[in-house]
């Protein structure tokens, strides 16, 4: 893949993130206070909302791509060699954290 097309991916994931992350943060202020939004039942209730689960899955993948690709870009700017070496490591880490996030959502969705 050409570098320029990966740069475009960074822009388009940014646009998606602006929308999806706003919804995610809205769910933190909807319960009315910070402490309330962190209560165990409140946290689990959020996951039982079908539309919100879809939002979270999109957020998980898009945020991981944007964040880890951003780290890769910084490494490439330091030295292209470092960037090339780090790419498979960053890809592997991204897959691991995506699976962990999906496991959390699946666990709560299946056993509410």
């Amino acid at each position, binding site marked *: 893949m050409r570098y320029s097309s990966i740069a475009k991916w960074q*822009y388009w994931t940014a646009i998606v993130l602006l929308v999806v992350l706003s919804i995610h943060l809205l769910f933190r202020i909807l319960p009315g*206070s910070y402490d309330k939004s962190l209560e*165990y039942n409140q946290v689990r209730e959020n996951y039982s909302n079908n539309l919100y689960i879809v939002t979270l899955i999109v957020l998980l993948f898009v945020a991981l791509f944007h*964040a880890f690709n951003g780290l890769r870009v*910084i490494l490439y700017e330091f030295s292209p060699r470092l960037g090339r070496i780090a790419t498979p490591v960053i890809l592997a880490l991204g897959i691991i954290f995506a699976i*962990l996030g999906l*496991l959390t959502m699946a*666990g709560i969705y299946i056993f509410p």
Partner: protein
Amino acid sequence: MAESVLELAIKRVMGWFLPVINLERVAYILHRITGFYLAIYLPLHIISTHNSLNPIAWGEELKLYSSPLIKAGEIFLIFSIFFHGLNGLRLLLVEYFNIFLPKTMPSSLYLEKILSLHNPQKTVLYIVYILSIILTILGTLYLYNILTLRW
């Protein structure tokens, strides 16, 4: 005598940065720092929310969140989210969609003048700074439960 040598050294070091330190450059540096901070936060957030599968583990998690060090980290997190988001939106509009560009490009021979932003880009950058500071203050008040909402 020792003081004057130190002063001279500080002046020399500052001299490297002063001609190029302006709000655009600060925004560039801050975008990198906040982006790096958010990229480190994201995996930690995925790991910590995994504890919501278990009520006892979640209780331990909440105890951790109330420590002052984590609170300080969260205040910088709030600033990072708003600054990176708003500045990212500005960069998208200017660089990708070519909105807010000056009508005529500056014809100055001075490199610094060509490189620095021109209106309306400059105004948009100021709005980004002001909005992110206001939102960080509101977010911090919400973090300490000083600000609560009733729907």
